[in-house]
């Protein structure tokens, strides 16, 4: 597995993890950064053969940027977006109800 949400992967029990501590969305590497992406694939291919036990994690040293602000911004809850989040939740619940009424669910 190549991923960026390490806690989720570890809790699920993943045999081999190549971990890029980057914003969710680009687990293989930053967009258009071919060197980083090649390095990640290389690490995954190596780990497939070198891992001796399940649950092994290889963290790559890649960074998103000099600024770490993205970590605070992801799913942030602030005084300014509380009402917006509640209306997002309301819309989400209404959509789920509509899906059920229209038979849009998996058996």
């Amino acid at each position, binding site marked *: 597995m190549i991923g960026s949400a390490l806690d989720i992967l570890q809790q699920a*029990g993943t045999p081999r993890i190549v971990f890029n501590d980057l914003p969710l*969305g*680009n687990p293989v590497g930053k967009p258009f950064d*071919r060197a980083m*992406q090649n390095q*990640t694939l290389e690490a995954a*291919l190596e780990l497939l053969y070198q891992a001796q036990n399940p649950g092994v994690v290889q963290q790559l040293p890649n960074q998103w940027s000099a600024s770490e602000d993205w970590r605070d911004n992801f799913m942030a*809850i602030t005084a300014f977006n509380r009402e917006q*989040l509640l209306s997002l939740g309301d819309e989400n619940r209404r959509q789920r109800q509509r899906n059920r009424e229209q038979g849009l669910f998996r058996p």
Partner: protein
Amino acid sequence: MIRYIERTKAYYRAQGFDQDYQWATNTQTPFSKPARPLKSARITLVTTAVVEPSIPKPIRAAKSYRFSDVPAHFDTTEVSWDKITTHTNDRESYFPLHALNKRVAAGDIGSLAPRFHFIPTEYSQRHTRDQDAPLIAQHCLEDAVDLAILIPL
């Protein structure tokens, strides 16, 4: 490092959901070593990026597609990722097919499997465990796959 489970719980509580999502928890992890060396192994990819957005999200199930039909861009609008900080306009950043093909062409990897696999990020662990994962495993066996790299967004 972000603790995504805690972050997600807080985020959905703030949206008025009173029951936390139960993340998959397994205390035992399956493990096996590759049967063939990389130079003769057949490899595939498994992604959570969407090939057919016309299928409504609530009924999207695992599906396998030929690599020859891979879209230039997957649809990621209904997948959860950091839409404030980054983008998914570069397919290689979550589906490294060009990088894999180069390694195959160089002779480092035996071959690319005929199919890759979509698995939806499902609310229901039952769907993932009892329907989606077995289907993908079956297709990998049919394709004589030795190695699969799973890359969730």
